[in-house]
Structure formats: C-alpha cells, structure tokens
C-alpha cells in the first residue's frame, strides 16, 4: 500500500490509543486526588497526583508555558483534555485521528470511518463545564468509544496491510504508555520506610494497576497483597495481561513477521530481539538491573524500532541506486 497511507493509518491508531490511555490515566488521577496523599518533601511537588500525568507524557514544560504557577486540577484537565495547542491532548488526538481517517477513507471499512467521525462530532459537542461535575463519566465514555472503534476495526476490516499497520500503531503506543506509567509511578511510589504496607500504599498501587486496567488481573493471578515486585512482573513479563509489555511485543513481533518482506528483515529482527527479552525474561533480572534502568532500556529499544519502521515502510527514502534499478 502507499507509504503515506500506511503512515496515516498507523498514526490514526496511535492517536486513538493515546486518547484512551490519557482518559484512563486522568480518571485514575482524579480518583487518587480525592484520597489523602502523603505530604511531599520540598522538590517533590511533581509527584503529587495532578502533576503525574504531565510527567508521564513529558508535557510538563508545555503545561507550565500555558499555565504558569501552580498545578491545579482544572488547568491540568483543560490542558490534557481540551487544549488544541497541546498536540497530545485528548482533543488533539481525536481530531488528528479523525483527519487521518478522513484522508484514508478508501483504505478503511466505511463503518470505521462513520464510527470515528461520530466520536469526533460528539466529542466536539462536549460542554467544557462538565469537566467539573461529570468528569469520570466523560472519561468512561472516551474509553468506551475507543473500545468501540477497535471493535469495529477488528470486526469489519479486511486483514490486509492497512489492518496490520493499524494494529501495529495500537500496540506500539500501548507498550510505550505502559512502560512510561510504570517508570514514573514506580519511581514516585518507591516505599519510604514509613509507608510500607500502609493503607495509602495500597491505594497508590491499586491506582497504578487501574490506570492500565490490570487491577482485576492482579487479583486473579496473585492471590496475595499488592507488592511492587509483583506489579512490575505483571505489567512487564506476563503475556496474559493485555497491556503488559510482553503482550504488546507479542503482537508487534507477529505483525512485523507478517509485514516484512525479504528486504525488510531488520525491523522484524529488532522486534524479535525486544520480544525475546520479555519472552525469556525473569523478574529477578529486572530487579537486579533496576526497574528504571530496565524500562529506559526498553524504551530505547522501541525508539530504535520506531525509526526502523518509519524508514522501511512509512516514510521511505529511496537511495538513487534503488531508483535506477527499478527504472531499468
């Protein structure tokens, strides 16, 4: 298929996943902010609930430019949900996804476009006043519409290249999101001596699990109290947890095996490498290396993979000798 088309669909998919992840994270942040949280040491203000979404997405700097001074729930919500100037706001994500879909209408099932178009039109009609009173319902609605779009895609689309690039976008974004949330939250939740096993601890860890929809899974897999090590294991190594890094890399590796032809094996190899580390990895290794280092390493790997995917499929540049060979 056209490289530009694959690129648009890949990004359409990443943007919807990003919007859903943002909704999930902000919802948990909102719930967390209702609970008492421990008084922070000076210099740790960024760890308070409403700052965390900014840190995880890397948009703290942009936020402070728009809203200098204190972090307030209102401003964070406005910035991350409605702000068209923030390219990762839910508004920007859905708008961009819909624009990508609109320009790619020929490549996707008509029901998909109708669903996404409807999502956008309804989102645009949302009353910003409801950011105060009905915020949880609003985030629920976004999650549901994202599920719906994925469902329509999965249910209607021909399993062609377009479909594979759409799925690739979803899992690349999801892996990125899980790794970042785990990195930032784990870092802030490292038990201080006073808090180990305390009630606040439980809520913090369960909030982390909920932000990746893994709270119920944790309960089913580990019939024991929540511990940091088990949370890391669940979200990194367990292939049966849909948002884990292992589950995401399973999909990514499989998709690239399907997509790559004989001249494109490097992308497949890089994915295979990342996949193998997760598939054969052990929790003790992660602890030994240190979670932050492990995740930094993983994100470096996915960044390299992203570059390779771009070069190979989405934004290829043909060196002169290839152009001449083809023309001959």
């Amino acid at each position, binding site marked *: 298929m*056209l490289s*530009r088309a694959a690129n648009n669909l890949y990004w359409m998919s990443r943007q919807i996943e990003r919007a859903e992840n943002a909704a999930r994270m902000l919802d948990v942040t909102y719930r967390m902010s209702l609970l008492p949280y421990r008084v922070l040491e000076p210099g740790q203000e960024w760890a308070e609930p409403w700052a965390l979404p900014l840190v995880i997405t890397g948009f703290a700097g942009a936020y402070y430019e728009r809203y200098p001074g204190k972090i307030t729930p209102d401003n964070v919500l406005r910035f991350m949900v409605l702000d068209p100037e923030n390219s990762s706001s839910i508004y920007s994500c859905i708008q961009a996804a819909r*624009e990508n879909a609109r320009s790619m209408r*020929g490549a996707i099932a008509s029901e998909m476009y109708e669903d996404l178009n409807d999502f956008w039109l309804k989102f645009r009609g949302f009353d910003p006043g409801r950011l105060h009173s009905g915020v949880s319902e609003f985030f629920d609605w976004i999650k549901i519409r994202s599920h719906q779009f994925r469902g329509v895609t999965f249910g209607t689309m021909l399993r062609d*290249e377009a479909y594979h690039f759409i799925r690739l976008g979803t899992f690349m974004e999801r892996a990125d999101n899980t790794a970042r949330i785990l990195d930032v939250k784990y870092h802030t939740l490292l038990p201080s001596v006073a808090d180990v096993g305390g009630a606040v601890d439980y809520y913090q860890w369960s909030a982390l699990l909920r932000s990746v929809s893994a709270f119920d899974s944790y309960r089913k897999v580990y019939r024991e109290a929540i511990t940091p090590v088990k949370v890391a294991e669940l979200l990194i190594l367990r292939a049966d947890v849909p948002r884990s890094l292992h589950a995401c890399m399973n999909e990514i590796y499989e998709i690239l095996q399907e997509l790559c032809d004989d001249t494109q094996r490097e992308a497949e190899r890089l994915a295979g490498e990342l996949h193998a580390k997760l598939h054969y990895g052990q929790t003790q290794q992660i602890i030994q290396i240190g979670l932050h280092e492990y995740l930094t390493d993983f994100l470096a790997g996915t960044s390299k993979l992203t570059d390779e995917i771009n070069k190979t499929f989405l934004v*290829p540049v043909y060196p002169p000798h290839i*152009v001449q060979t083809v023309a001959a």
Partner: protein
Amino acid sequence: MNAPLNTQVAAHFYNEMRDSGGAARAHYAAYAAWLADKPHDFMLQKQKEADTLYARLGITFAVYGDEGGVERSIPFDIIPRIMPAAAWKKISDGCCQRVRALNAFLNDIYHQQEIIKAGIVPERQIMGNSLFRSEMVGIDVPGGVYVHIAGVDIVMVDAETFYVLEDNLRTPSGVSYMLENRKMMMRLFPDLFAQIAVAPIDHYTDVLLDNLRAVAPQGIASPVVVVLTPGSYNSAYFEHAFLAQQMGVELVEGQDLFVADNAVFMRTTHGPQRVDVIYRRIDDDFLDPLAFRPDSALGVPGLFAAYRAGKVTLANAIGTGVADDKSTYIYVPEMIRFYLGEEPILQNVPTWQLGKPDDLQYVLDHLAELVIKEVQGSGGYGMLVGPAASKSEIKKYRARILENPASFIAQPTLALSTCPTFAQSGIVPRHVDLRPYVLSGKSVTLVPGALTRVALREGSLVVNSSQGGGTKDTWVLES
C-alpha cells in the same frame, strides 16, 4: 392527509411531472400514484433520514468562501427526476456524438489543424486561447482520446427540446453524487424500485476502469491505474476517494509519486511501484512544477516528460481546456459536421460572442434579459442572470464587460424545466438541469443516468452546488 401539492405551474416553464391540468405525465404516472397516498410527514421523515445519513457518511463538499467551515453537505432531494427511455436515447446519442467530435477536434488542433485550414474555426480562437497547450503539439495520445471523462450540461425546455449548455472536458465532477444518490434512494424507497423499472447505473466505475486500462501505454500487460488528487482539503475530495475505492485502485497525491527515467512510480510499503495510467483530478497548471507552474506543491516533478515520452497516460489529457472554453462551444455543431459528417442531435444554445462588436452592442442593450458568462469561468461564478439581477448589479457587470468584452459570452435566459422538489411547505416545482457523463477509451459510452442538479431557491435558475443548489436521483425508465 396527502402531501400538499403545488399544482400551480408557471405559465412558461415545462413541468416534467405534471401537465397544465395537474395530471401526471405518462413517465411519472407510477411515481405519482405511489406518492398520492404518502402523507407529508412520511416524506419529511424520509428527507431527514437522507440528510442524516449523508452527514454521517461524511459526503461533503467544501464551498470556497463559505464561513460555515471546511465541509458542507450538498442538499439531496428525495423526489426522483424521471425520464422516459426515448428522451434518454436522444440525450445519450447526442452526447456521444458531441464527445466524439470534441476528441477529433483536440486531436486535430494538436496535430494538423485541418479545421483551422478549412476556415471553420478561426486560428485566433485556438492559438490565442490561453488554455491551448503548445507543449501538446505533435504528441500522440493513446487511441487519440483526449477526453476520457466528459460532463455535458443539458437543459430541457419541453418534452422533446434539449439544449447543451456547456461541455466540461477538464476535470468534470459530480458523478459520485449520481452514484450515491441512487444508493440512497434504493435505501429509502426499496418498494419503488420493485414497482418501477429504473435502468441501473452502478456499473459506471467498472466501465471507467475498463476505459482507463484500455488507454495504457502500449505493451503493458496489466496496467496500473491510479487516481491523482490534490488532497483531502480539495472541494471534490470525497469524489476522488470514492472513485478510487469503487474502481479498486490507489488514491495518490503528488507526493506519493516520483519519476525515474521518465517512468512514474508510487512510494509503497514494499518499494516503488510502476504507474501506467493516471486519472488526474488536478488542473494542468499544477501537475508538474518542472513543466507548468513552478510553485505547485500538488504535482509531480517530471510528470510531463514521462507523459511526452509515452510512458504514462493521463486522463483527461493535458490541454483539453481549449475545447470546453465557452467561446469554442459555439463551433461544436460545426465540429460534428466536419469530423463526423453528421448533423448534431443536440442543439447549442444561441450564443452571442461579446468580442464581436455587433453581438456586444445587442447584448449591452438587452442585459436585463440575458445570461452573461465568463468564457473561461466555471461553477456558476462570475455570471450575470439578467432577469434576476438588480439595476446596480447590471451596472457593475456592464463595466466588467467593457473592460474586456472578448472574455464574455451571452445566451438567452432559458426556460429550464421544473421538477417536483420536496420543501418544508410541500412539494414544489424547482428548476433542474442534467449532467450525463460520457466515457471514452475503449469505446464512447454512457451509463443510463446522470446527475440532476436542482436550484433549491424558488425561482432561482442557478443549479450549481457551489452556489447552494442541490441534487436529485435521475431515473431513466427501462422502456
């Protein structure tokens, strides 16, 4: 309660559905009987359904200069325009004849120019025409076909009298509405199609693809066809995407293509792929920054060189604008006689050329009665409808004419036929025109149908969608 009908027919406009006594004409009889027991609310609900579906499907059209934003739906009217088979045959034969002559004309003026030598068309008309592309002189196009897709605008004055208003030979649009309108009507009123034998049109894109493949450069076994679009912000983008999807071919933008060794390739996820035929919906001027406008970001550098080398076919060919120019229009009946040896089946509208002093004088004396158009205008912009214009509008237009009389033509105000149209108040007569699409390549042919455009404002004669017109499904009866 039946839908209120406006049976009052303006004395001098031909009502396609009802005669002056209010009785349904023969070809509308079955529809009128069906309509008779449908309450106004039923039709209102169907109209709303259609509007909602069109919005949801995102079938939109961008109107330049409209503050409403980037997209708007073209209003679709749920009452079909029905045409008897015999009338269609005349229109169809007449359009084919016209397009055959126009293709022969284009071939001629870019080669031997016999029609100029024969003194039928003045040399100045062609060589002085800004749309004549000297780059095309001497280039042979596959099959001698320049116009693969033509839209011929026709008006009906009474049951047997049709006039060709103009030929559209560059990038005629609107066929997607013709096809979508039919799908919409079948969805809204399936029972009607069981009762009335309407000729099918959904094979249009099959015929189009066949013709496009047939004009691929010689020797290509499985020609690769693409649709080239300026992009999703173009007013007709929906149609570009629609046609590509229906034909099962790629929709490309300039940036997706590159030229290597005079051959055209597209950038794909598995390397470059050769392109043989381009159905281009970009104007000549923007096609190639190396050959035409250098500031065009929409085109493909080197495309014209590939075209000249015969390594890619463009549909429609470059340089067809000289033949759909409103001043060239005057010569089309003569072209039919000269190239085909036939008498024109469809008539031209009597036309005054304001470049001629006598014509200019007559027109200036009768501005309030005539329709004046720019010779190279399109979309209904820049025209004056005398009877509908205010004194000051006429005065301003007179000044424009006097600045450059040769760039205007004038025609009498035609008494366009009317067709029943659904309005909030009931079913009312509104003026319509007809745009059938003629396809050439393998053969010259039409599907039995066309786009009917309707002027939605009472009394308005301007049907162009870019100025608030709407569309209807057009039913050609099978017999």
